[in-house]
Each structure stands twice: as structure tokens, then as C-alpha cells.
């Protein structure tokens, strides 16, 4: 598992966050980050459900990229953008945060319930293999 701070980008070290961030809105940032690795998890470091989803992928032998929104200066905006992305499809639990949100191969999979449903009905593993996150 490797953590991407908001100030790092996939293509280079020594990247300056402020300059780049100002020209992108939160949603675009989310989508850009989502495309940077086969499996991307948007998380909050104190969120236990995020911990669960991380453990799920690690248990499968996948090494996801984790974006901790509480360590990102624009985390709050991104969280709101993610909530909008999820729409009403996620499980509505009182006081629920938008996280965790999982992207595989740059495409949105969803929150914990979607990820688990995909794993149970057998669609998660092929998705991971297609994205190159899993090898037989």
C-alpha cells in the first residue's frame, strides 16, 4: 500500500501542489488521482470503514493507492465532490462520510457496500485483473 499525499503526482517528484491545485477543481482532482493507479482508495485516516476496505484489498494481495483526504488541504472539497459522485446510490447511514470510495482502473466502483457486493458476486476479481492490480 502506498500513500499519495496531495502534493505528489504520479509522473514526477518535486511537484508543487499549490500551482497545480489552483487550476483544477475538486472533481477533476479526484478523477485525476483516480487514474494514477490501478486501485485508488479515497480515505480518511481516522475512518474505520476505510481501514476495513484497505484490509480487504491487502488481503486479496492488491496494493492500492490511498488518498487520505484529511491530510490534503483540499480534502474537504474532494470529499464533497465524492459524495456527489456517489449520489444517492450509497448506503445512507446517519452521519456517514463519503469515504471510503474506491476506483479501479480509473473507473468508480463505489463505497464499501458496492465493493463488497462486487466481491461477493465475483465481479471484483476480474475487474482487478483487467486493471492489472492482480495477477494469477
Amino acid at each position, binding site marked *: 500500500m502506498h500513500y499519495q499525499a496531495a502534493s505528489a503526482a504520479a509522473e514526477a517528484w518535486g511537484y508543487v501542489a499549490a500551482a497545480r491545485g489552483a487550476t483544477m477543481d475538486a472533481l477533476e482532482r479526484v478523477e485525476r488521482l483516480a487514474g494514477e493507479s490501478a486501485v485508488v482508495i479515497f480515505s480518511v485516516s481516522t*475512518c*474505520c*470503514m476505510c481501514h476495513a476496505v484497505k484490509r*480487504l484489498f491487502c*488481503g486479496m494481495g492488491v496494493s492500492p493507492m490511498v488518498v487520505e483526504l484529511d491530510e490534503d488541504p483540499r480534502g474537504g472539497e474532494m470529499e464533497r465532490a465524492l459524495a456527489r459522485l456517489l449520489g444517492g446510490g450509497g*448506503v445512507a447511514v446517519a452521519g456517514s462520510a463519503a469515504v471510503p470510495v474506491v476506483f479501479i482502473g480509473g473507473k468508480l466502483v463505489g463505497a464499501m*457496500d458496492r465493493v*463488497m457486493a462486487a*466481491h461477493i*458476486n465475483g465481479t471484483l476479481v476480474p475487474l482487478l485483473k483487467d486493471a492489472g492490480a492482480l495477477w494469477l
Partner: protein
Amino acid sequence: MYSSHLYRGEQAPSGFNIGDAVLDLTRSPILSPKSSSNLTAVNSSPLHLHFGAINHASVASLDVAAPTAAAAAHADAGRIAFSRGQIENWGDSAMVVSSPLTDTSTDVEIEDRTKMFGGIQQGAIVCVDSSALSEGKAGDQKTLRRLAQNREAARKSRLRKKAYVQQLENSRIKLVQLEQVLQRARQQGILIASGFVGDHSYSIGGNGALAFDLEYARWLEDHQRRINDLRSALNSQVNDDELRLIVETFMGHYDEVFRLKSIGIKSDVFHILSGMWTTPAERCFMWLGGFRSSELLKILVSHLEPLTDQQLMGLCNLQHSSQQAEDALSQGMEALQQSLSETLASASLVPAGGADNVSNYMGQMTIAMGKLSTLENFLRQADLLRQQTLQQMHRILTTRQAARALLTISDYFSRLRALSSLWLARPRD
């Protein structure tokens, strides 16, 4: 002399097995109304006097008193023969032939014969001449049919008894659960109206736990009824379409319990988590407010053979992925507990005055409250996992296999509940 099956020297009726005996004595001239005079003679005097002289009896010697009858008896090709020992015994013991006869056969002919025998003071042992089986075949078949009917009746009776016992068992379990609910209600000082409102019975107090318990008890009763329907449908071999419909409805009923649990989680998460709405043995195996799907699948795989390779692989994958999901959720729960205890511990444990400490304490409590609220999310995810596992299992299996799977699962939980009842009722010092 006549060759025959003879029951020799037996004095007790219980020793006889004349179930397959055919008594065709109505054709015997000796006992026919024509020779009733002979019978009368027999009746009126003690047998041993009458036959005492006949030590080496053959039928012929019986005919001392009625030669014509004897000749006719001979002509009957010796279907009936009285053994010498038995004739000697006639005077010595009361041999009741009627009971074995009536016990083994309700053939009208035989009944008539026993009546005739009843006229004789001492019962006679009668035997079948094996060489006369062709004459006796009709009687044989009747007897066999009677026997088959008896077996069938006995079997049906056993099935009825089994069903009744099962029903009793279910009622007993339900009773135990209702008693638990009542006890809790009394503790909480809530009055229960005599008639429960069916759906959404939150009119009974504002108590989420009690409301859930009542709804769950009702669902469980409904569930047992459906299980019996499913079982009888599977055994009576309804056609596949009908069975599919029954299974689909059944799966829909499972969705209902998850809906109830969802409401219950929102109204009282700790009650659901505690498992106090289940029986003790079920509670022992509880994981995050319900059963472990991976465990159920382990049980099912061995009970569902024969499975195609594809199905077996599908079920194994399902078991594996549900196990992984359970592990992930478990680790999330552990993180939650750890985080919660850290939060509570970080607030100053040393009682000290000062506004800072108070606000610090309140702050930590607020954080702790926030963490607790994620508990609902975990239970909800666990239920979703259970629901999805059941649905996937349904997809993998054929209709008939799915029916058997649902019955197996239900039986397993019934046993857990029965175990709980036994445990609660065990004698204690």
C-alpha cells in the same frame, strides 16, 4: 395321512404365526352347517371326553361320529388337518385361536371362521396344507394387501407423529422467545397491549429493542411456516416452475428480515449487536449482529452434493470471498474499538478542575460519539454481506439445490435454537 403344516404341541397362542395361513374351513364339511350336529355334540360335551379316545388322530378318526363328514373331509384333499398332539391338547388347554387370527388378518372369511371356532369351547389350531396353496392364493393376496395397507398406515402415522413433534418443538422455542421478550418488557416497565399491531409496531412504547424483538419473533414464526411448505413441496416433487416460485418467495422473505434488522440497527444498534434477540447458542456463534456467511457455506457444500464442477468452484469462491469480506469488516471493527478506547483514554483521566479539562473531556466525548455512530455502518455492512451471500448462493444453485440449501440452513438454526432450549431447561443442582 395328510401332509400339512402342523403347529405341533403349542399351547400358547402367541407362538403361532398364522399370518399367512389360509383357513378355508368354511369349506370343511366337518364344520359346515350341514354337520352342525357334530358341532353341537362337540359343544355340549367336554372335548377331551369326546376325543379322548382318538390318540392317533387323523381326520379320519374324527369321523367316528360322522362318517359322511369324514369322507367329505378326505375329499377336500386334506386342507385341514388336526395334529394328533393338538387333538390331545384340546381338552387340556384353552387355546385361543381367535386372537392371532384377528391380529394378523381382517379377512372376512377368517373372521367368520373364528366365530365358528368361538362356538367351540376350546379353540382349535388350524393349519394350512402347503399342497393346497393354489386354493389359498386369493386369501394370500388379500392378506398381503392387508399387510401392505397396514404398513402404509403405520408409515403415515409415523410421518404425522414426526410432523406433530416438529410443530411442538417450534411452538416450544417460540414460547421461550416470547417469554424472554415479556421478561425484558416487564423489566423496562412497558405495558403490552393484548393485541399486537402487525406492521411497524412502534406504537408499543418507543422502545426500539422491544419492537424489534416482537417483529423478529413474528418473522421467525412466519419463517417456520414457510420452511414446512418448502419441505413438503420438495418432498412431494412439485414441478420445477412451481418450486422456483416457492424458492423465490422464500428468498424474498429473507429480505424481509434484513429490512427489519436495518430498522433495528437504526433504532438500537447495541441491542442488535448484543444478540439478545437470538437464543444463547446462536449468540455464541454471532458475528457483527448475525450469522457468519462463510460458516454457512462450509456446511452447505457437504450437504448439497452432487454439484457440478462449476457450481463447486462457484461455492468455494463464494466462501472464500465472504471470508475475506468478513475478515476485513472484523479488522475494521477492531480498529474502531481501539480508536474508541484511545479516545476515551486520551481525555484526562485524572480528575482535575479547570475549564480546559472540561472542554477537553467534552471534546473527546464528542469524538467518541462520532466513532460509535460508525458502529451502525459496520452492522449494516455485515447484514449486506449476509444478504448478498445468500443471493449469490441462490444464483449458483439450481432451484432444487437452492431449496435443499435453504432447508439445510434453516435446520441448522433450528438445531441451535433447540440446543438453547435444552440448555436453558437443563437440571441444575
